[in-house]
Every structure is written in structure tokens, then in C-alpha cells.
């Protein structure tokens, strides 16, 4: 089908942000009825490319071609008006407005005198929800929607104007298996109707499942653009990282020591109940389960961010004062949160400042921070974690996702914790950095750190964990030793189909 004129194309596009050249002479052609994958590590320029297509960034040089004709988008509205729908990595909704309004903002159906036809809006949204097979109330505000539901709203938005080009930046990162399947069905349907699709995902199997053609970016340049048929996942990874990938899950054998973290009958009404488990030194314990099973909430309660209604947390044998992160940190707990942009980092602050945040009392005297100490601590950890950065004074916001995650890790590891809780440590991180994070966690455990890892990535759970704890609807339903942990046994427990392995206390 590539003999026809591409619906949307980039030709020789360059884009720089300050000294960083995000895109160099990149070309891309999207054809009607074809799903095109965009592959590349974090920081390769995928998001910038998408934003150039979506009218958010204007290329410094080069052209955007629509049906073969050069166009200039003056803003996201222009791109939308010619039928380009973009689903961003992080849903961008209006929390105060209803789902229906979110979907139709800026292009509501009109009645005479240009008034909004609220009835038509509601009817169309109801139709979209049926088409998507979801049961979301169009009148409910977007505030409080789960990420998966927010993504659904974004998809409904794209569907609502029968987009000619659908661009999706990691739409499946937060979706469950069934939601992903549903999304793919919708995308397939759109594609069959002649829409061009551009798809970004770090899950290679999804790329192979959904797409016919792939363009690979590395360091802002196009490495290859080719049909997927005949390629293997290894081929693709090699193009992305430019080298053969080492073992993705470098699990080291460790000696398991005494109990470092002990959680007993921890309960938070309506969220999770009666959760008890131990994590010993040198051990990586995975906390698996479905999205919404209460895993992150348990971690937050253990760390004291949320106050538990009942139960006890002991670190190294001493009970923690409930509801106090300060006490938790003093006792040697560290929590690397799921949402690094919101909770893990201060995006506007420099790398060294961010790393210094957890140890302000140790970086100086009498409340005065010594710059030299701060810098020393930061550069120390930056080297240990192989952080890729220009200068330690750079804003964290300019780093790629994987490197941001390393900064969060550095920030917490610098507190020399006895117990490290990591929540989705590799979500949205490219394969190369992912392996580095895994190697790091592994070597930390080998050094005697107790690691509690929350993860929705099943291969990661199976590859890294010494034991797998599985949560289902707010309860700990299974504890599976490494030898017995398989995709089937973990999934069975997570979906509540009766836990294999011994049930937790």
C-alpha cells in the first residue's frame, strides 16, 4: 500500500531544544490503512517527533506533509482540524469537566446560533462508550478516574472525530491486558476504515501484534524504516540500542539474612485489609497483582505517606510510628514512588538538588547547605548509577524517563536505606535502561539490601524476585517462591482464581 501518497509525512525534520538536538534530519511516512510503529529508547526523540506531527512543536527545518502537500501547524488545534488525533503518554484531561465535555472540548456539536447541543454531545458520547465497550458515565467529572479510564476518554476523543491519523504515545503503559486488547480492536477497526496509525510502545510484542511497518530512532536520527514482517524482536532491539542486548534480568544469587521489614495485619479501610509479610536482607520480594489491587497503597501505608487504620510495620525489629514518613526514613526505609514526575522529583530543580533532597540535614551544618557536599553526593551516585547527563546543574526535566528514574533511585539510595520499596521501577523506561535498573536492584540486594518491588510487568516479576506476593482486591492472596512462580500461577492468584502456593497469613 506504500505506492500511494502518504497521508502524513515528515521530510528532513530538525528540531533542537537549546543545545539538545532532539531530531536530526528525520523523515517518516504514514500511509492510510497502515499501522506504523515508532521504536527507540527513551530520549531517542519519539515524543518530539510526535509533537511535531501534532502541531505542538514547529520543526526548526524540514517539512510536514499532509497528503503530499506541505503544511504548517500553528498549534494542536490546526493538526486536530485536519484529522490528526494524538493520545499522549500522560492523559491530558480537565479534571473539573465532565467526560463528555472532555471529549468534545473545542468542537462541540452546535445548535442554531452556535450554541452547544448538549443533548447531541451526550448521545454521541454514549455511542462512543458503547463502541469502546466501556461503561463510563458521560456526565461524571474526569477527576478521580483511573489512568486506564482516562486513557479510554482520550481514545474516545480520537474516535469522536473519525481521525484520519491516529498517533498513540505509549497508550498501553497503564492499561490492563483486557483494556489493551480492546484498544487494539478499536485501532484495528479504525485502520480497516483507512486511518493511518502511528504507535509507540516499549512492549515489543505489542508492536509486532499491531503494526505492519516500523521506524526506529536512535539519538534523534532515523536508523531504519522497514516492514515488520521478517523482523524479530531481537533485530528491533538491536536497532534501538545499537548493540546486542545483554541479559535483561541479571538476577544475582544472594544470601538471605535476617528480617529487615516486617508488616503485620496492615489495614486501611476500603483499600486493603489484613496484609502481613516479611522482607529479609538480601532478598527481592515482588508485590504483584492487578492494577487497583491495592499494591501501591500498601507501599504508601508502610512508608507512612498514608496512615493505616490498623496493623504494624517493623523495620529491623523496631515498630514504626504510623503515618510518619520522617520516622520511616530515619528507620531506614526508602520509597521510590510509581509516578516519578509528580512524586519522585522536583522537575524544575537540578539533578544535584534532587538527589540532595533526602539528606538536607546531612549536607551541611545548622541548616546551611554546603554546595560542595551536595555536589559530591550527587556526582558520586550519578557515577554509580551510570546516569547520562550534561551537567549536574541541569534540570531533571530535560532528562529522559530512564535517567529520571535513576535520579529518583540515587536520591533514595543516598539515604543508605536498609529497605528499598520500588513501585513500578521500570514503567515507561526503555529496554537498555531497564536492564541497568535491574542490574542495580540485583547488586543492591546482593549487598544486603531488602527490596520490595511492586511491578505490573510479569517477566520482570518472574525474572527478578526471590518471592512473589500476590494481591487481589485489597488482600494478600498468595506467596509464591521463585521456583514455583510462573506466569500462570501469578496470574491465577492475581485474578482471584484461587491462589496457588501457600496462602499468606
Amino acid at each position, binding site marked *: 500500500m506504500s505506492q500511494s501518497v502518504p497521508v502524513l509525512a515528515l521530510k528532513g525534520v530538525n528540531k533542537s531544544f537549546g543545545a539538545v538536538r532532539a531530531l536530526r534530519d528525520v523523515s517518516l511516512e504514514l500511509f492510510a490503512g497502515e499501522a506504523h510503529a515508532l521504536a527507540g529508547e527513551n530520549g531517542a526523540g519519539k515524543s518530539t517527533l510526535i509533537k511535531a506531527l501534532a502541531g505542538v512543536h514547529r520543526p526548526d527545518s524540514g517539512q510536514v506533509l499532509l497528503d503530499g502537500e506541505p503544511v504548517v501547524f500553528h498549534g494542536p488545534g490546526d493538526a486536530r482540524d485536519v484529522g490528526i488525533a494524538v493520545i499522549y503518554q500522560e492523559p491530558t484531561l480537565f479534571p473539573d469537566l465532565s467526560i463528555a465535555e472532555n471529549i468534545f472540548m473545542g468542537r*462541540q456539536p452546535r445548535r442554531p446560533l452556535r450554541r*452547544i447541543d448538549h443533548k447531541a454531545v451526550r448521545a454521541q458520547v454514549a455511542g462512543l462508550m458503547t463502541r469502546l465497550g466501556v461503561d463510563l458515565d458521560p456526565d461524571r*467529572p474526569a477527576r478521580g478516574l483511573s489512568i486506564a479510564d482516562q486513557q479510554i476518554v482520550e481514545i474516545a476523543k480520537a474516535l469522536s472525530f473519525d481521525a484520519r491519523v491516529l498517533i498513540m504515545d505509549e497508550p498501553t503503559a497503564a492499561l490492563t491486558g483486557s483494556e489493551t486488547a480492546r484498544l487494539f480492536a478499536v485501532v484495528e477497526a479504525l485502520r480497516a476504515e483507512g486511518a493511518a496509525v502511528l504507535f509507540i510502545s516499549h512492549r515489543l510484542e505489542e508492536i509486532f501484534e499491531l503494526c505492519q511497518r516500523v521506524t526506529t530512532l536512535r539519538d534523534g536520527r532515523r536508523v531504519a524504516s522497514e516492514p515488520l514482517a521478517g523482523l524479530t524482536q531481537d533485530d528491533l532491539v538491536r536497532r534501538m540500542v545499537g548493540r546486542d542486548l545483554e541479559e535483561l534480568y541479571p538476577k544475582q544469587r544472594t544470601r538471605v539474612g535476617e528480617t529487615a521489614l516486617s508488616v503485620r495485619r496492615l489495614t486501611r479501610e476500603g483499600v486493603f485489609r489484613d496484609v502481613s509479610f516479611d522482607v529479609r536482607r538480601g532478598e527481592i520480594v515482588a508485590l504483584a497483582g492487578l492494577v487497583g489491587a491495592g499494591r501501591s497503597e500498601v507501599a504508601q501505608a508502610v512508608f507512612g505517606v498514608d496512615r493505616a487504620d490498623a496493623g504494624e510495620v517493623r523495620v529491623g525489629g523496631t515498630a514504626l510510628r504510623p503515618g510518619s514518613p520522617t520516622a520511616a526514613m530515619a528507620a531506614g526505609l526508602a520509597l521510590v514512588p510509581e509516578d516519578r514526575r509528580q512524586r519522585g522529583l522536583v522537575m524544575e530543580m537540578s539533578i544535584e538538588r534532587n538527589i540532595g533532597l533526602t539528606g538536607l540535614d546531612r549536607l551541611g551544618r545548622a541548616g546551611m547547605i554546603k554546595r560542595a557536599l551536595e555536589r559530591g553526593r550527587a556526582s558520586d551516585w550519578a557515577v554509580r548509577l551510570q546516569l547520562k547527563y550534561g551537567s549536574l546543574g541541569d534540570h531533571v526535566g530535560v532528562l529522559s524517563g530512564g535517567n529520571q528514574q535513576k535520579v529518583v533511585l540515587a536520591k533514595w539510595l543516598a539515604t543508605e536505606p536498609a529497605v528499598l520499596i520500588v513501585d513500578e521501577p521500570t514503567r515507561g523506561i526503555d529496554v537498555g535502561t531497564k536492564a541497568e535498573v535491574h542490574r542495580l536492584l540485583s547488586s543492591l540486594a546482593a549487598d544486603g539490601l531488602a527490596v520490595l518491588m511492586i511491578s505490573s510487568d510479569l517477566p520482570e516479576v518472574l525474572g527478578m524476585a526471590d518471592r512473589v506476593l500476590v494481591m487481589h482486591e485489597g488482600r494478600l492472596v498468595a506467596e509464591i517462591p521463585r521456583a514455583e512462580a510462573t506466569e500462570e500461577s501469578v496470574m491465577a492468584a492475581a*485474578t482471584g482464581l484461587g491462589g496457588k502456593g501457600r496462602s499468606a497469613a
Partner: protein
Amino acid sequence: MTVTVEKPAASAEGARSARSLVDAVFRAREISIAGALALLVLFTWVAEPRFLNDQGVKDLLLNAAILVLLAVGQSVVVITRNIDLSVGSVVGLSAFACGKFVSGTDHGVLTVLLLGVLVGAVCGAVSGSLVSFGKVPALVVTLGMLYIIQGLDYWWAQGEQINAADVPQSVLDLGSGSVLGIPYLPLISVLVLAGTAYFLRMYASGRELYAIGSSPEAARLAGVPIRRRVLGAYLFSGAVSGFAGALWLARFGTVVADNAHGWELTVVSAVVVGGVAIVGGTGTVWGAALGALLLTTIVSALAVLKVDSFWADAIAGALLLAAISVDRIVNVRMTRALRKRSAR
């Protein structure tokens, strides 16, 4: 591959109750203000029956009319996550300009009102351009405009004042006349209020104001012309304030350089008490108008009850804090409730 298979989204019943919950919360705000207002009126009336005689009601409505107008204009700005502190000064300047314009001659009521709107719109255009295109924080811009316009007014007035004797009867009639016993001023305010409410609900540009206040980033990606809309909100607020200035002249006849001095804070209080979130994105002009009516009534009631007027300020302040606390609590609770409903 992930360990993630979720239960189907909220059931239809869950969804329906989520909607009614949200509806109830917002209606509750307006109902509780209306309730407080009713209680206040009732209490004052029992203590001093003259409060609700013909003249009393008329005074109450006349006093509230201008504040309600300003609250409507202010709401539109606050909904976009901005603020307009210059409204008091704009009223002052517009009233004085209109006074100068009519003194001694009769240009007809409409011309005077138009002049007021024009003066206000120019002020709003300046503030709005600085906020939207200059990207200067609204608080700073409009605080600056407050002093600049005030200074301009003082310089122009040079201590002079406009007296009712200089104002033509046609203009004064607007301030004191009535139809079916209801004075013109409150009627005008209600018309502007209803028109604005209709616009905010029924027009895309109205909804976009809410969108901008709710999430500027999402608004940008949705292709909402943010700068144009914010400028529009300031133009509207300015025009309404200027209009209110002309009505001020009609109502009082006497105009000095610093009339409506300090009103901006009362207006912002009224808006916030009325349920328009100071962080933008939520609230209605009806609520804001109720807030304005409540604040006015408190002042009038205390006057009738012969309580020192400084108590009015204290009560207004307490109401403001209460309103903001309630907003915060409701917001947290509602988010939690909605999350629970969509999670299970």
C-alpha cells in the same frame, strides 16, 4: 505483558450515583448559601420588621445590584484561574468619566452606559493583554492596574467631584426608577447574570474558559485559544465593571475620585463564597451572584440591627475562610468518593 486484568468499570448504578453525588455537591453550595441568606433575612426581619418593608427591600436590591454585576464579571476571570483586582478602580474611573461626560448636558442614558462599558473595556484590554500575551501573573498585573487606574482617576479629578445636580434627570431616573415595583438596577444585573450564565453553559468559548481554568496544559493540547479566551475574560470583566461604574453614577449621582475604593476584595470574596474555586475550573455565576447578595445582606442586616459596621468585615472574612475550607474539604472528599466508585 502485564499482570493486569481489571474488573469492568463502574456499574451503571455506580455511575449514576457518581453523577448525582457531583450534582448534589454543586447544588448544595448554592442551596446552602440561599439557605443562609434566608435565615439571615428571617432573623433580621424578626428582630427589626422594618428590614423587609418596601423601602428596605428596595435598598437591599439596589445595594446588591452593582456588587452582583461585578461578581459576574469577576467569576468569568476567576474561572480561567486568573483574578482581576482592578475592578474597584475601573468602577471609580468609569463613574467619574461618565459623570464628567454628562455634567450639565443630557446625552441620553444609552450613550452614558456605552461610555462606561467602553472605559471599562479599555482597562480590561490592557490587563488582559498583559496577562495573556505578556504572561505576567494576573495578581501582579491587576494590582498594578488597580493603582494606575486609581492614580489616573485622582489626577483627572483633582479633588473635584460630580454632584447629583450636574447629572441629567434621565440618568438619575435609571438609578431610582422601577418597573412593577422592582428597581431597574437589580433587573439589569439579573439580565447580565442570566446572559452570562447562558453563555458559559451553552457556548464553546464559555466552556473553554472552564477548560483553561481546569487544566491549562490540557487546554493547549485541545487547541483552545488560551490567550484569546483569557483576554476575552478580562475584556468582559472590564466592560462589566465599566458598566457598573455608569450605573453607580445613575444610582448615587455624586461621584468622587475614590468611589468603589476597596471593592475588588469584596467582589473576590463574594465570588469565592459563591463557590467559584479560586484555582479555576469550577463554579457558576449564579453562585457568585448569591455570594454577592449574601455579603450585601449581611452589611444591611447589621446596619438595621445597629451593630458596628466593622463586624460586617469580620463576618465577610470568616465566611471567606469558611468557603475556602469547605471547597478544599469537598474537593478532597469528592475525589476520594469518585475514585472509589470508579475503582470498584
